[in-house]
């Protein structure tokens, strides 16, 4: 694409995506009218799943490219606001969209650890990393480690950490895609995963980062509309004000008033309580440990960091972090409202009712295998709270029915959940495949490979990794949110210290960084595997979703101590670090470093 057409494309972006959002609204309205005229629910489900995937595929095919910088970093033309939206979709996965509000419903204040941990990390990204990685201006995160720590050992360590974290993460996303597709298309879970796989691949295979960027913007628009509409509707219905973030304070009060009557010992808003409702230091420590691991993990996950490689310059990279967290914030500060409204509805209209007179949505969902169970334990015909068990993954999906909304809104929510899972899966897939094709194949195996060959290898790896991830997900290894939290801990322990110290502490040596990565990542991996598969007792009661709590300080101390024991980096390397710190000007490449 020539420069002039590129710039008209960029200036037209607001118009293009505005038109797209409008078109989507018209599509929803038409389906809503059709529903009133008797269109079967099954068709509505199909329409949402297939039409949205078709749109993403269309964008993906339009964005096909044979240029390296387009494939790896979207040509570095993405404006900050749009990169913010793309990052929002890249970031918010099935865990945020489907599971988080459900977790808040079940655990109350403890669930807010996720809300905090998955937002505050952007402050670290924006202040410590994004602008400097943008100035560095190469293709991948391991690229930075390879240049700063002079050699393929650091690069390879980076690839290993990236692979372990991103692969764990992508398996959980394939799992989420399988759940949604199987429910709304009515096909078996194992088949649904591979249908979803096609949805992932059409977005990324032909156009790499360029295609993923522009589909992610489209996916953000759908997922945010789908998340906000049901909860705004419910807020208006309950409190006559369409701002759920303000009105759910009243819902929390109403819940608190009902809790003693229903025999709830653990209040929704109570902080750091154990199952008996007593203050617990273990809960307290697990809360801040989780917040820390998720935040540091945010600033270490390569699929997020590489989004800031795509902005035109350093200033835009910084601004784009602000827009990213703003777009993410819109969903995250609404999630607790979702949880509160659902809980209030259950407490006031479900519990205490006669079991044969329950609302329709309860009856509908209790027929879907095992996600909502109702058992009349004492046989009195009336539902008590312990007799009602709801799975956290269906709170958001069942919300439209809880609120008594038309089925078209259920379809919309499914499309939103699918957009969230697909966009994250695409970002992760690209991060893994790029690291393998660029860092391992091109930098280590065949540095003389032609552009054509590099792009072919990148695409073959992309498809290969996607198929393996889907195959692993079809074995249902663990819950979505748990797998995601592991990915964060692995990335945090392996990458945060070498990246941040590499920029902010010139004295960091290659030996120090490598030793720190090996020890920090190794310890975290050990803790995770030993506690999960070998019944090792927890250290200080810290759950393994916060494994990085141990690996992170070890990585930091080892890096600093070994760096101080080894010879300081060369003058040239220090000049190189200096040139990364200043937005303007050329990079002062150290001698012997390989770069494009």
């Amino acid at each position, binding site marked *: 694409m020539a420069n002039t057409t590129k710039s008209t494309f960029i200036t037209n972006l607001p118009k293009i995506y505005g038109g797209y959002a409008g078109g989507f609204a018209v599509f929803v309205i038409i389906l809503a009218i059709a529903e009133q005229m008797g269109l079967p629910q099954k068709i509505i489900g199909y329409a949402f799943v297939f039409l949205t995937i078709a749109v993403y595929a269309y964008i993906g095919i339009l964005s096909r490219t044979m240029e390296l910088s387009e494939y790896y970093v979207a040509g570095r033309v993405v404006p900050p606001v749009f990169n913010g939206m793309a990052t929002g979709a890249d970031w918010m996965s099935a865990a945020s969209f489907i599971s988080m509000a459900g977790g808040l419903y079940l655990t109350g204040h403890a669930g807010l650890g996720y809300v905090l941990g998955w937002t505050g990390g952007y*402050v670290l990204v924006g202040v410590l990393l994004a602008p400097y990685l943008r100035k560095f201006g190469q293709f991948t995160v391991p690229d930075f480690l390879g240049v700063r720590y002079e050699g393929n050992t650091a690069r390879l360590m980076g690839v290993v950490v990236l692979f372990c974290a991103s692969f764990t993460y992508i398996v959980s996303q394939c799992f989420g895609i399988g759940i949604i597709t199987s429910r709304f298309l009515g096909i078996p879970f194992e088949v649904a995963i591979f249908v979803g796989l096609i949805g992932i691949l059409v977005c990324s295979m032909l156009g790499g980062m360029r295609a993923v960027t522009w589909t992610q913007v489209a996916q953000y628009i759908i997922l945010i509309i789908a998340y906000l509409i049901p909860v705004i509707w419910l807020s208006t219905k309950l409190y006559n004000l369409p701002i759920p973030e303000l009105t759910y304070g009243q819902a929390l009060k109403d819940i608190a008033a009902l809790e003693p009557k229903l025999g709830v010992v653990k209040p929704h808003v109570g*902080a750091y309580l154990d199952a008996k409702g007593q203050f617990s230091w273990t809960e307290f420590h697990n809360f801040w440990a989780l917040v820390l691991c998720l935040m540091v993990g945010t600033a270490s996950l390569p699929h997020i960091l590489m989004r800031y490689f795509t902005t035109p310059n350093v200033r835009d990279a910084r601004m784009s*972090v*602000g827009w990213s967290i703003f777009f993410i914030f819109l969903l995250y500060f609404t999630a607790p409202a979702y949880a509160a409204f659902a809980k209030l509805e259950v407490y006031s209209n479900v519990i205490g009712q006669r079991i044969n007179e329950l609302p329709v949505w309860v009856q509908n969902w209790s027929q879907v295998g095992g996600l909502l169970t109702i058992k009349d334990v004492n046989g009195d015909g009336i539902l008590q709270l312990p007799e009602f068990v709801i799975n956290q993954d269906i709170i958001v999906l069942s919300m439209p029915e809880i609120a008594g909304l038309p089925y078209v809104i259920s379809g919309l929510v499914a499309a939103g959940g699918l957009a969230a899972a697909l966009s994250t899966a695409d970002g992760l897939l690209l991060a893994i495949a790029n690291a393998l094709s660029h860092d391992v194949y091109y930098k280590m195996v065949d540095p003389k490979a032609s552009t054509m060959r590099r792009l072919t290898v990148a695409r073959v790896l992309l498809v290969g990794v996607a198929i393996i991830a889907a195959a692993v997900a079809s074995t249902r290894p663990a819950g979505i949110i748990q797998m995601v939290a592991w990915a964060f801990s692995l990335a945090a322990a392996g990458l945060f210290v070498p990246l941040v110290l590499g920029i902010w502490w010139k004295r960091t040596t290659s030996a120090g960084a490598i030793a720190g990565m090996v020890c920090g990542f190794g310890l975290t991996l050990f803790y995770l595997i030993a506690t999960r598969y070998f019944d090792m007792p927890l250290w200080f009661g810290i759950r393994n979703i916060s494994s990085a709590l141990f690996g992170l300080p070890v990585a930091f101390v080892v890096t600093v101590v070994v760096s101080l024991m080894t010879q300081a980096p060369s003058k040239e390397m220090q000049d190189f670090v200096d040139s990364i710190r200043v937005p303007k000007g050329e990079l002062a490449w150290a001698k012997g470093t390989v770069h494009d």
Partner: protein
Amino acid sequence: MADLTPAQRDAYWRKTSRLMWTIMILWAFFSFVVHLFAVQLNSISFIGFPLGFYMAAQGSLIAFVVLCFWNAIGQNKIDKEFGVAED
């Protein structure tokens, strides 16, 4: 790199570091310190919410958004001051 003398470069980095530490301290405050007192704060009511719950659900999040934009704008000012902003 841009034409900064070593002294200017050090001054530039000192200012950048000061902004970094300011924001990091506020980040730590809103990420951890406030929530250490969630139990006590919950006895205070703020726009209809128990304050401890509110800070974790909304207050800290708003602070994070502000901090990110503050960092971007503050660093732009420093860049302009030293003439190293991009064109």
